């Protein structure tokens, strides 16, 4: 069977996380890599199938260091170079008093990097995605579990994938159109 419009992927719908995880493992074992599971909450058993490097902690670390350096250089510049004030003969670069703002800006920058870093790595914001072509997909955020084997996978073969997914007795297998 050949769909009239190009295929984005084959999607199996489950109402239980158990068969979803089994199906994901099996698809992974068969060598498919362009596979995505869509779940209403984080199913931890799927973590082992992810092979991406965790970049986010590094991004947050860079953010924190940048925040620290921003605070220190700002305080040093203002207190020593731009607007030096003699307060009871204390050194202009009285760094112990500067610690609080260094700490706050470290946290602030790291948090902003964490938030926007996560969105960037997720590829969000993305107003439309091919999965939204599937009407039933609305339940992925409520109570159903979806496994999508994408057509761009080099070893993708529609009938083989359908057969493989059917083994796990999904509620239904859908052809999701590309756009």
């Amino acid at each position, binding site marked *: 069977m050949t769909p009239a419009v190009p295929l984005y992927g084959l999607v199996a719908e489950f109402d239980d996380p158990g068969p979803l995880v089994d199906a994901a493992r099996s698809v992974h074992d068969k060598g498919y890599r362009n596979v995505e599971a869509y779940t209403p*909450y984080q199913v931890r058993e799927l973590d082992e199938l992810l092979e991406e490097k965790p970049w986010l902690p590094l991004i947050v670390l860079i953010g924190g260091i940048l925040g620290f350096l921003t605070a220190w250089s700002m305080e040093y510049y203002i207190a020593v170079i731009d607007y030096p004030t003699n307060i009871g003969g204390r050194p202009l670069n009285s760094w112990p008093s500067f610690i*609080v703002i260094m700490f706050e800006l470290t946290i602030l920058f790291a*948090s902003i990097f964490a938030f926007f870093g996560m969105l960037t790595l997720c590829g969000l914001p993305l107003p439309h995605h091919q999965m939204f072509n599937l009407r039933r997909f609305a339940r992925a955020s409520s109570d159903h579990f979806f496994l999508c084997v994408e057509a761009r996978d080099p070893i993708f073969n529609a009938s083989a994938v359908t057969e493989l997914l059917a083994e796990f007795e999904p509620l239904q297998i859908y052809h999701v159109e590309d756009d």
Partner: protein
Amino acid sequence: MTVAEKQRHSVRAPDPDVALPVIGPSQTFGTVTTQISSVILSRKTPWPWWGTFAFGLLLVGGFTVAVTWVFGKGVGIWGIEIPVAWGFAITNFVWWIGIGHAGTLISAFLLLLNQSWRSSINRFAEAMTIFAVMCAGMFPLLHLGRPWVFYWLLPYPNTMTIQPQFRSPLVWDVFAVSTYFTVSLLFWYLGMIPDLATLRDRAKNRFVYGLYGVLCWGWRGSHRHWKLHETASILLAGLATPLVLSVHTVVSFDFTIAILPGWHSTIFPPYFVAGAIFSGFAMVLVLAIPIRAVYGLHNLLTERHLNNCAKLMLATGLIVAYTYAIEPFTAWYGGNQFEMYMVHNRAVGPYAWAFWTVIACNVVIPQLLWFYKMRTRPKPLFWISIAILYGMWLERYMIIITALHRDFVPSSWSNFIATGWDNITLYGSIGVFILLFMLFIRFLPMISMYEVKTLLPFSSPGGGSEK
């Protein structure tokens, strides 16, 4: 003793606290979604919501008038003068920001400690934080005298050729509070993104669909997203935990860096942090108890939550009580006559009523929480929490006024008498809080749906698939 004997000896009657379930029986993924999202999407807004909203609106009306008057006439309309230059405004500031702390503690600290019971209270506790910090932030600005030039607090290139003074705790406060607000907002929003996607998917018309669709940034719950979301949440929790401790520490520096007796004390940072969490948990309970009754959320906000919050309240309350005891001890042991006078004056002077009310509300009444029945029955717990909130406000009032009103020079002694505008501004800020909170429970998911789902027994494939 053999292993078997040891095991026999360790068998005890089940602890009633542990036996309380985190989540009510017979829930499925679908019922959790429906129960929480229907509050926003389909259920009729209950009349207590309208009543509380109208009450909040009334208070906000008073607040608007009071703030307009402060802008027009200046802070002289309040009871403040020299030597008591910090009256209600700073009291309200410290009180509100303290209330916020429990929200961050629940959402960040308990996440790091893997306390799964937090899942159903963290969303609205975090919302409480944000609204409390918004209320708090208004007061130092109103207290500036010229609120319209508040941006002079920030370092920026300017034609006046002056810059902030980084050795001052008041400048630290600007950074601490604005960082706290920003980080809390990001953390709250990050946690809400998957639930906003649920609302988008259940929307019945295009406007609601578009609104939540934009707010959730196009979230689709893919496993890669969840993994990144979890990493980001844990990182933000790890950042927010030291932050929350630092914020009230910096607030306490506003006092301790001064040389005033009654303020100049090294115990202030832990004392303020404990007091903040104490009052914050009281506010969590004051919000949670009516919400669970009005929206019928007894299966999600169970007695286990009330019990745990009450225990944390008791523990932090004991730390606060310890500080109340150690303050006179330090004054006596240090032998400083000004400190001794301050302690004496606090207990028997013109503000003795405040001191003894504080002792009653923050030390005596919380002892009721030693009783299991007091911790799990909503009604007594609600009133104990109200007493603690009142006591904690009065505590900050007492710290500020009793230290200031007796200056080092007796000729400048004078008492502080709050004016009507002081009171209207305080109650008005409570109105702002109520209004924002009512809008939150009407338009945003007040309980984290995806986190509650992970508490269901069949959420993990290893836990069996019975339904």
